[in-house]
């Protein structure tokens, strides 16, 4: 029972992270109809920016006294703002010239951007090729335990932040003018621009929001796995991003609520697979689910089947 609850808890926590990343994929897909391949690298950028900003602020790895609570918030904000700027730049420089190009070309460009970010990140003048460990931003002893499940402060922070961000996004999309512009562009770009919506601005904004969420996920990832050391070149970054993409597809790509649902689902499947089957095939479960969904309901759990206009 304890193992079950613990797995459930871990699955939900990591599922929240997947959901945050998946939101970026899904929002871009909803509007531009292409897979923003570079999104997983923006997520990794979020992780590394968090580490870097933390070390600027003098926050080290495990062992040092825990910093003040607002330091974490500062790191989060910093990472989100810088990533947002990067996302904006990528869209303007690499994707905007290709608005009318076939989707395949945009996909290839996105791969180019992804490779660029990956390789730039490993350079000596950026984050360097050596492993660095996630800083300790809060008390790592467990806060309380419910029937054997250890709940740490950082877990609460991860889930809490993720929920707050998702609620903010929900509000943004359904209760603001900008949000309705986003929905209009996603529904029909041409009609939206005919109705006087500045499509380029909406797209830029979507990218900024999406990358900021990915940055937040990067920060929270570091928070959850504090003390662990990782390399910039580690393929796990792309892998995490990919799983988030799978989450977006499983939930129904282009559908914001689907992304959240898909994220949680993928997190749970991964952790239950690891706990009850074998930890070796961790990545395989997620992709097995992807193939299953594509076979049975290609439009995803919450997605609607669409017909291409001919």
């Amino acid at each position, binding site marked *: 029972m304890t193992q079950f609850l613990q797995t459930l808890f871990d699955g939900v926590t990591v599922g929240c992270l997947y959901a945050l990343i998946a939101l970026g994929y899904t929002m871009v897909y909803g509007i531009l109809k292409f897979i923003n391949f570079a999104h997983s690298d923006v997520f990794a950028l979020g992780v590394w920016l968090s580490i870097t900003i933390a070390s600027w602020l003098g926050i080290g790895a495990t062992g040092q006294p825990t910093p003040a609570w607002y330091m974490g918030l500062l790191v989060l904000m910093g990472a989100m703002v810088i990533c947002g700027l990067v996302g904006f730049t990528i869209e303007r420089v690499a994707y905007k010239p290709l608005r009318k190009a076939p989707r*395949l070309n945009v996909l290839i460009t996105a791969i180019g951007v992804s490779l*660029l970010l990956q390789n730039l990140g490993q350079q000596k003048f950026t984050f360097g090729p050596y492993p660095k460990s996630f800083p300790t931003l809060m008390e790592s002893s467990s806060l309380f335990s419910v029937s054997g499940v250890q709940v740490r402060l950082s877990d609460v922070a991860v889930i809490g932040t993720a929920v707050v961000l998702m609620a903010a996004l929900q509000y943004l999309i359904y209760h603001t003018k900008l949000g309705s512009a986003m929905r209009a562009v996603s529904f029909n770009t041409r009609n939206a621009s005919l109705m006087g919506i500045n499509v380029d601005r909406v797209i830029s904004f979507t990218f900024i929001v999406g990358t900021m969420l990915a940055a937040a996920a990067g920060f929270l990832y570091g928070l959850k796995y504090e003390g662990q050391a990782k390399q910039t070149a580690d*393929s796990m970054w792309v892998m995490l991003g*990919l799983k988030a*993409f799978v989450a977006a597809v499983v939930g129904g790509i282009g559908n914001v609520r689907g992304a959240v649902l898909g994220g949680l689902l993928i997190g749970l499947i991964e952790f239950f697979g690891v706990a009850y089957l074998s930890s070796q095939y961790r*990545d395989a479960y997620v992709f097995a689910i992807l193939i299953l969904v594509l076979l049975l309901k290609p439009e995803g759990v919450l997605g609607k089947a669409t017909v291409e206009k001919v």
Partner: protein
Amino acid sequence: MNRLIDHTRQLSPPRWTVLPRAVWPLLAGVVVALIAYYLVGPNISGFSSKLMLIAGTNIILAVSLTVVNGFTGQFSMGHAGFMAVGGYISATITYYGSIKLLGTAEFAGGALSWTGSGAHAGPFIGKGDLIFVASCIMGGLGSAAAGYIVGLPSLRLRGDYLAIVTLGFGEIVRVLLQGTPDQVQPWKASQAVDTPWYELLIKLGGPKGFNLLPTYTTLFWVYLFVVLTLIVCYRLKTSSSGRAFLSIREDEVAAQAMGVDVTKYKVRAFVIASFFAGLAGGLYAMDIGAINAGDLGFQKSFDFIIMVVLGGMGSISGATLAAIILTLLPEVLRDLPPVWPAGLVLLGIMAVVQAVRKHWHVKSLVGVGIGTIVLEGARQFCLSQGINIADFRLILYALLLIVMMIARPQGLFGIREVWELFGRKKKAVGSGQ
């Protein structure tokens, strides 16, 4: 107007022409391979011949990926995964097959596969060679089967799903292969002889990789398969199936309306590409004498994608050229020669071609000129600062992809072959007006 079927038999060529048409590629392959192995190989440095060999496998991989990504306009990102599937299958067959059939995992080939020093005293082709070639083909078939399983569900869907599924497939393959138990070491071959097949087949070395394989891959085998790959892919492209592939890439809706079973042809292209990727995997494994799934992750797939995109999405000769260039590029960058002579020569050729065709394209001339100046400037800068460009190779590739998509999205050659660019416009056949 008559129906198509009424003409077909009437227009069939005489029977005796069929056999030569079917087998000349094989003969051509053997001839080229013999030349590569006996004339070219011994007369260049060991390092150069190694590069030539790697270029050969890269040609097979890039050209086969062209069939999917170029002809049908789908987007596979798991080519290295298929290479891994084929490579491991052939490694298994060669290694354990040798142990089972010959009692040892040592090299047991003939002169054609000899990679050791000195002349080979022995037959032209040995028992080991047969096992090796059979294993490569089995690797190709196994990889093709995997391609079918992966392609069928994903190719029914919109194009970009294939990218994700193949990427995921590559990672699953890697994870599964890295989870296998240790291999039976060569010095324990005598014990392995009595172990049943099915127990050996899963002992693939796990994270350490599958090592100490006998090396059979020589310029002969590589270039034999290069020629076969090129001819097969060219025959595909210029066939009715090839037209179906290209029509899907051009306009899937129209292709369907004209009666092309789009899924079937996408799967067909994908399976063929997987076959050659698997084959190349076998050549790769028995060249290095080892194969490790960790080296064949999606990063490796990107190498081939870059070759295809650069060469032209759909140009066999373009992909071949790109494979050669990108194989040599790291070496060239390591010790960068001046750029401007090459730039001048290129400018000269382009000017002559354009003058002859009386069709001036000033923009391309200026572009090449500026490109040369910029590259030369960058080279001088790096030399003066002591920067080694080879370290920034991947960044350059990434930038190349982005710039290419914005400036020349169809790649260097588009779907055309190199010779089609310089020749006159194809004359209409049998036109009377």
